[in-house]
């Protein structure tokens, strides 16, 4: 079948609805935010339209730079942990029977239905001194006495990996299902142990999928702002937490908007770099 290029206005009709929705719910708010980021803040009040760089200038301090750095580091760590855990898991899952696959996928989907708040409080209970998992270790004689594992960086990381893991599996699953199972069998007949076959055939053959998944989890983790507060100390707070703080508690909309715009730009830059690096790797 050959596709005709659209000619009349009516041919473009199906595009109007999504384009309209995208404009109303994405372009307009984002444009507003960019505009606000250049506005002048009124002390004790709201803001007045202006065109000043103050908000961006204020952001370029050691403190905010540090928070931005930490946010990016946290998101990258979460992405790496998720993919490293989810890739072998999903690979093994695709080799299971259909029934086992369905049970696992339903279980993972049910984790997705949990709100971030519930995940946060559940983990903070599990990591607490009085009711946490350390009590089990004490009962098993592996630990002297129960202790609190939260707030800590590890607790934040665990909570966020737990939250992002189902997404990672669901993104990797279709690609791994499509992967020809005879590829690993061929590798085994050619002398590779199952583990080496995984690293020399499955991982390289899925390089593009893995990159895409890393980017997706990275962006997902970058937006997280509840878990760092529930499970971490103030130094584990992400830029998203500070943006919320500025926008809602400090009533400093222009500064919050500037931070948000900056975060978007840095994220886009990182994603572009990853894609470029992937392309170059492909060409080589």
């Amino acid at each position, binding site marked *: 079948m050959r596709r005709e290029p659209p000619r009349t206005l009516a041919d473009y009709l199906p595009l109007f609805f999504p384009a309209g929705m995208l404009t109303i719910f994405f372009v307009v708010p984002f444009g507003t935010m960019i505009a606000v980021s250049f506005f002048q803040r009124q002390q004790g009040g709201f803001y007045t339209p202006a065109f000043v760089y103050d908000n961006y200038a204020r952001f370029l301090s050691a403190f905010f730079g540090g928070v931005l750095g930490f946010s990016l580091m946290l998101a990258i760590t979460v992405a790496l942990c998720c993919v490293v855990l989810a890739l072998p898991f999903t690979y093994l899952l695709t080799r299971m029977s259909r029934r086992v696959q369905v049970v696992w996928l339903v279980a993972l989907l049910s984790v997705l239905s949990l709100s971030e708040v519930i995940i946060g409080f559940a983990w903070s209970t599990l990591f607490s001194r009085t009711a946490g998992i350390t009590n089990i270790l004490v009962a098993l004689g592996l630990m002297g006495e129960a202790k609190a594992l939260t707030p800590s960086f590890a607790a934040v990381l665990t909570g966020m990996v737990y939250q992002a893991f189902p997404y990672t599996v669901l993104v990797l699953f279709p690609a791994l299902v499509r992967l*020809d199972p*005879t*590829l690993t*069998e*061929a*590798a*085994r*007949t*050619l*002398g*590779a*142990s*199952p583990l*080496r*076959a995984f690293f*020399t*055939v499955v991982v*390289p*053959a899925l*390089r593009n999928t893995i990159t895409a998944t890393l980017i997706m989890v990275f962006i997902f983790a970058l937006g997280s702002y509840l878990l760092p507060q529930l499970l971490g100390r103030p130094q584990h707070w992400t830029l998203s937490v500070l943006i919320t703080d500025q926008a809602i508690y400090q009533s400093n909309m222009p500064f919050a908007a500037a931070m948000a715009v900056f975060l978007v730009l840095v994220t886009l830059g990182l994603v572009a770099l990853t894609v470029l690096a992937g392309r170059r790797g492909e060409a080589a």
Partner: protein
Amino acid sequence: MSGLALQNVVKEFGSFRAVNDVDLTVPHGTFVCMLGPSGCGKTTLLRMIAGLDLPTSGAIGLDGEDITRVPTHKRNLGMVFQSLALFPHLTVGENIAYPLRIRGAPKEDQRKRVDELLSMIHLSGYADRPVSKLSGGQRQRVAIARALAISPKLFLLDEPLSALDAKLREAMQVELRQLQQKLGITTIVVTHDQREAMTMADTVVVMNGGEIRQAASPIEIYRRPADSFVADFIGQTNLVEAETDRSGRVTVFGQPVPGLDLPAGAAKAMLSIRPEDVHLTAPGAGALTGTVTFVRDLGGTIETFVDVAGRQIVAVSTPRARPEVTVGQQVGIGLTPDVCVVLAK
């Protein structure tokens, strides 16, 4: 002993017996074709030889060593899959070098061996091409070269030529057989194409229902099939029933065939008569009489379909010996004991 030996190999999937008590000996350097309809257990048997499936019971030995429980990657074999399973992220050269790389061969040796193999498969200079840029026949050759890179003890191929078009397939069959003879490597090919098996094999193993029905040389299988399944599966044949009548003569369609003997004590037996052994004569001159129902003139051969007492008998003749018959005509069929193969039930 040198070569491959299967002993009482059984494979069950749940309650289904895919391979039932198979015994087979493949001497070193022979070319074996496992032939059978789909679902006959031939691929499962090959996968067990490769170690990709474990037998439920039985033993597999290679060069006198029991390899039943040896993992696939330690068996030092080469296998070509039906899907070829070329690694899409590697070039032609990297694909062929993969088994060498895995074994930690020096880079220089890898390159030399890849060049050697590429010239063997007539693809010199293709080392740096991505596999996706190759034609079907070229990919086929790359898969074969990759499987042969380490000079394996055993060369296994699972329906290797099924993805190729008919002409290329015939050419590859000859090429594969010549390659195997040059290298003297023990080779097992699974196929459902009997022409392929006849072209390439030293030994054809006919399987059905998870069992070996006959294992012999192609001509032996063709000339002396063990049972009616083998006779029917290999080439075209006419299966007719022979009976011993009251006076002790062996008859076909009620006509006595002097000199034909049935197995001792059997009152009935199946006969296999190859179409090229069926000679049409003038009506009344042969042992049987029938009516011509159809003539298929293929140029190279002529097939004449004759109805004898409700059973169809096919005769094949060459254009030089063209029978002068037309549809509806009465013909005689000559039957001599030497063309009738008595099948064991």
